[in-house]
């Protein structure tokens, strides 16, 4: 075990007003002093342990690579008065358009995740204000080539249908919109396929013979609600009991509940470690099964979850990490950052106090064993539960690839990629906006909150550290694509008779 003293990271020398400053250090810090950057984002945290371990070593390294960007030290970058660079829209757009084009042979490892490239790039372009309807024809052709007669979409032609790639294709079709795109989906086969993945314990396999995890549950909930699929089970489904009250969404919320860990966060499957990506899947899934204000407190220990989510934000980085004692990563701007609008909706506003009882009509409530959970009244979050300024600083200072390549990334020193570009922008979007949800009606229909009306506004409280032109478009807090795209797709299938 290492017992060495833990020195401050190289870039983190902090001039203290009491000490004699040498000239070099004054020069070192002058730029950041001229800019309005709170010392919270330029200095090491006040409490640090001396013990060095692998975890503290990589954490210190990360702080070292982030500090120059956070302190306005990068000579090649233009900062505003708050020490924040602008969003390089044009370069990011170019990066995304390129990623949709022909990819070189080295991308062979992405052969089973091409639908993700479609979703990430189209979604990110949309948030950047680009019109993606010109991609409609290509998306239609690409999606068709990936659909299987037995339902669902694979990672490419003749690949097994997978929950994740199907989710990505459906969202890509919603993003380009239009009847032609919607009509690509063989909904009857899709419904049969989803039934074949539904497990008796409430969860979903990600593909036939594949693993069962909370991603499967979230993706299934998104697919079922967007495509307006029937909830009935086929007799071939592993979850079929003959009892007509048992349907596609039965037991899903219970499955989600079993994934909450002692830390308060959510794991990918029961008994594993709490992880940011699964927190979003859990909350997103619940928010589609019922009204967030009712269903989330019914199945999850909300105070512990909030404590865990809040612990994901670090200073001075300002960004979010995915697990306890892990490093910040731009993608958690969405996976963790995207949980806050859902949590805030769950807490409601001061005018509406939710007690957390599950409405009888909630499909997920019928088989619940957890309605005995104590219903402590929680106050609404009048202010943000996380530091929007910190996250926005991390995103704009540390996550932009400032070279000609463009795109967004995990952290300085890493390459940009479509995955990070999309999820960093999603996180930026949720940090720049606030969402309000209509009040749950006492007689909630079985559709749950799938039709809940979310109202979005730009977030205007406090000091705005970014320029107005750098505000990206808002996205639906659950489906993570613009609200009008969600509405248009749902309405299209709503009007259809049968499949």
């Amino acid at each position: 075990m290492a017992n060495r003293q833990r020195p401050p990271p190289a870039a983190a020398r902090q001039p203290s007003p009491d000490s004699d400053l040498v000239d070099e250090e004054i020069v070192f810090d002058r730029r950041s002093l001229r800019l309005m950057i709170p010392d919270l984002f330029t200095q090491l945290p006040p409490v640090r342990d001396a013990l060095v371990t692998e975890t503290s070593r990589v954490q210190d390294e990360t702080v070292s690579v982030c500090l120059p960007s956070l302190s306005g030290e990068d000579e090649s970058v233009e900062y505003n008065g708050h020490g924040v660079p602008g969003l390089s829209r044009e370069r990011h757009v170019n990066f995304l358009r390129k990623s949709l084009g022909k990819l070189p042979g080295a991308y062979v490892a992405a052969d089973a995740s091409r639908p993700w490239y479609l979703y990430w790039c189209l979604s990110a372009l949309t948030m950047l204000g680009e019109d993606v309807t010109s991609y409609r024809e290509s998306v239609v052709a690409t999606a068709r080539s990936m659909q299987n007669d037995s339902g669902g979409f694979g990672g490419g032609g003749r690949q097994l249908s997978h929950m994740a790639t199907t989710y990505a294709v459906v969202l890509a079709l919603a993003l380009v919109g239009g009847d032609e795109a919607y009509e690509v989906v063989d909904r009857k086969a899709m419904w049969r396929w989803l039934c074949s993945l539904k497990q008796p314990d409430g969860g979903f396999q990600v593909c036939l013979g594949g693993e069962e995890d909370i991603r499967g549950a979230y993706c299934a909930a998104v697919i079922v609600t967007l495509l307006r699929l029937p909830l009935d089970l086929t007799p071939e489904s592993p979850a079929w009991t003959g009892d007509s009250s048992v349907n596609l969404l039965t037991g899903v919320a219970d499955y989600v509940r079993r994934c909450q860990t002692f830390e308060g966060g959510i794991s990918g499957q029961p008994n594993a470690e709490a992880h940011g990506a699964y927190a979003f899947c859990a909350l997103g899934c619940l928010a589609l099964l019922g009204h967030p204000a009712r269903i989330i407190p019914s199945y999850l220990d909300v105070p512990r979850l909030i404590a865990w989510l809040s612990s994901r934000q670090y200073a001075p980085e300002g960004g979010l990490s995915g697990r306890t004692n892990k490093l910040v990563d731009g993608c958690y701007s969405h996976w963790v950052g995207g949980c806050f609008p859902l949590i805030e909706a769950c807490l409601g506003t001061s005018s509406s106090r939710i007690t957390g009882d599950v409405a009888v009509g909630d499909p997920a409530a019928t088989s619940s064993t957890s309605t005995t959970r104590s219903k402590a009244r929680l106050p609404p979050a009048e202010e943000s539960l996380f530091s929007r300024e910190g996250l926005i600083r991390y995103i704009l200072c540390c996550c932009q690839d400032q070279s000609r390549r463009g795109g967004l990334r995990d952290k300085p020193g890493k390459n940009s990629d479509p995955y990070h570009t999309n999820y960093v922008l999603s996180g930026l979007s949720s940090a720049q906006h606030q969402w309000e949800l209509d009040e749950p009606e006492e007689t909630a229909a079985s559709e749950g909150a799938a039709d809940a009306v979310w109202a979005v506004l730009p977030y205007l409280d406090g000091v705005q550290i970014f320029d107005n032109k750098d505000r990206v478009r808002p996205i639906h807090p659950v489906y993570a694509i613009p609200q009008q795209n969600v509405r248009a797709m749902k309405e299209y299938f709503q009007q259809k008779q049968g499949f």
Partner: protein
Amino acid sequence: MPSKRKAVASKKIKATENSDPSSASPPNSDRDTASTSTGTTPAAALPSTNNGNTDSILDRSKARFALARPYDTLLQQKGGALSALTPAEQSAWLSARIASRLARRPVFASSTAASPPSSNSGSSFGRDLRGAACGGGPKTLKEVWRTVNEASLPLRAAAVPLVKGLEEGISVKEFEARWERKVWLTCSDVASRCFKEKRERERRGEREEKTGERVIVTGQEIFEETGRRQQMAALRTELYGGGVRKDGKLAADPEWDDVVPVVLEEPEGALAAIAYPPEYAEAMSYLRAVMQAKEHSPRCLRLTEHIIGMNPAHYTVWLYRAANVFALKLPILDEIAWLNEVALENLKNYQIWHHRHLLVENYFPTIASDPAAISAFAASEREFLRQILAEDTKNYHVWSYRSYLVGKLGQFDSAEELQAIEAMIDEDVRNNSAWSHRFFLVFSNPEHATPGVAATEPDPKVPQAVVDREVDYAKGKILLAPQNQSGWNYLRGALVKGGRKLGTVEEFASGFVKGLGQGEEGEQVQSTHALDLLAEIYAEKGDKEKADLSLRRLGQKWDRIRVGYWEWRRKCLETPA
């Protein structure tokens, strides 16, 4: 290398005896070209020119070209004008030209399709002949052949064109060596076709005409064919360069002859289309074919390995591999041993872990009633997990698999498992994955865990001795690094599981916070997590004021990035429970 050469040589002798050149190895291209003059090469049988020392094959080709056209050469020598030739020479020159054209004409081609001969002929005889060539009657043609015959013109040699392209600049010796290799290639091709034919007859269940026995392709024949195709592929590249379409690894493998690969064309305008390396594209086309045929066989297993080597993230291939392993009833432990290597080479891949999960699901029933076998398997898995976690201490999929394995093999009470985790926490006390696993081992142990109780809820069945032990363990580790949240989360989790008040650790937590609210100088916080817990403890005791102060100080000074959360917590104090 010497042994290889020897083998090749002996094989060649045998081949000569069998007069089957195709089973011999190809002429060695890097050997001393002097050996081509030993007279064993077909090149030696070529009509030699009067200039055997010609350096370039182009020179020799030109010389032969001239020899085959004696009257053209004569014409050139006399300045190029037909009038310089005698009438007899003129007549012979023209006949030669016409005859060579006629000789090259397709047998059944219509005479009108023949192109007219050179128009610079001035003699009337020439005009007659031209008429003949353009469709004259048999009589005029007879005249041409008579002239040609009398002049003993080398018509057949004249049909050989000048060398062009690749071969133009090479020496005669090189050309001869090349020629030899071309002959070998042709012979091999014939042999290869014979092999395929025999394969096809075997498939149809035919019998040998002479013996009446079933046609069977032996392993030796397949082995030889494999080698032959490799040599043919190499030779084609050597002779014709990389521009020639090369057969892929599988197309060249006789084992795959019966499979028609399913090639997928991307639709027009396909997005994020990958320019697949040829080897990958070929393998995938064979995979589609065998998956479609639902074939499960050793060669399919090898194919999946081949593809996984190029793209380990291909979930379809992994599931198909598992199906093969189970259908062929292969020893699971062999597959696990293979998988260990793949896993260590692909640390970030997670398909590997589901594959392992499937293997264990399949394997466990065979050892379920044998505790010794279970222990042995658990031990070998633990050893492998130790290795892989040494490379990547917080790998999420490895840890998820580990918790699955503990449940499956019932290792909750295994001292080795607990020790392995303690060793990892000793190595890095901030390894939260290890802490999480410990919590699972202790508090999900079916011996004393109530099914259905949530992770953040008290479980009355957990023995208090266990809670004591875990609380002490966490405290000990917190002392090493008080700002390590893993230890505090564990401590709080253990207290809640044991149904204990958080206040039972107030004294311990207070040790990390001094002089709260006593100004910048007096206030010392060694752990924000201790202060967080103290705020809860004060609230639990009903000391709202102190709780509020703790939360305020966290937001103001000690953990400012989370000020929004600390403020919300302060509001929680106001809300009646």
